[in-house]
């Protein structure tokens, strides 16, 4: 009965996360928007688990594990980039761009 509201809220949260990735230039804020998108998907999993069985709740575990791994590695990359460029703005990360 709460399935459709939950899916709607999760769609809006996912869109906000996408919008944040498109709007911002700060690498850390973009990273947080990715976490927001992962959480929107978690909400979908939990909402559908109510109707389709406990497998959905188990999958939230795996999403959390992947999110934790991603946060650790991603923040380490940001630290390494900051050491080279003294900035976390994506405007300065154009090493692979020609010209």
């Amino acid at each position, binding site marked *: 009965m*709460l*399935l*459709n*509201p*939950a*899916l*709607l809220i999760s*769609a*809006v*949260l*996912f*869109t*906000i*996360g*996408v*919008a944040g990735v*498109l*709007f*911002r*230039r*700060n690498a*850390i*804020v973009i990273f*947080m*928007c990715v*976490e*927001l998108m992962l*959480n929107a998907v*978690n*909400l979908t999993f*939990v*909402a559908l*688990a*109510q*109707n*389709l*069985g*406990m*497998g959905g*709740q*188990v999958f939230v*575990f*795996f999403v*959390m*594990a*992947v*999110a*934790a*791994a991603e*946060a*650790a*590695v991603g*923040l*380490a*990359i*940001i*630290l390494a980039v*900051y*050491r080279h460029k003294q900035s*976390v703005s994506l405007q300065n990360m154009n090493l692979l761009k020609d010209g």
Partner: protein
Amino acid sequence: MTATFFWIFGGIAIGSALLCITRRNPIASALWLVVTLFALAALFVLLDAQFIAVLQVLVYAGAIMVLFLFVIMLLNLGRPGPTDIKGPVGLLTGAALAGALLFQLKVLGQTTLPSGIQLPPGTVAAIQQQQGIVGSVANPLFGAYLIPFEIASVLLLAAIVGAVVLAKRKL
């Protein structure tokens, strides 16, 4: 009653997510994201996933967000500086793309599941009553999903080693 609380917490989640992507200061962004994560934990409770809600607060709002704040403060990015939000062209393109995505995802609000794959109502509540809140998640995790669980542990080990290798100045 449940539906009212659901919409209240959903509204809090959406509002704080919007504040999260519009604040200039990364620390303010991170703290608004914590509010979103707490509101999502409340939604999980309302959707019969109490154990997931506890994990959400412990792992996401606790561990992962502390890691984010730690890095922001380590790099000293909390000072007010020039805005990192893109100019009008980038903002308009982003808004148009996000609007198109929302338009496509909006159909989720009216979707209905085919009755063939749906469990009879009250099944999940009965499983939770019988096996306990934690047991109902743990049984499939250590049964049908045992191999993915082991793969996740290898992934976390690789992530730990990778983070140390990347962040260390000199190995």
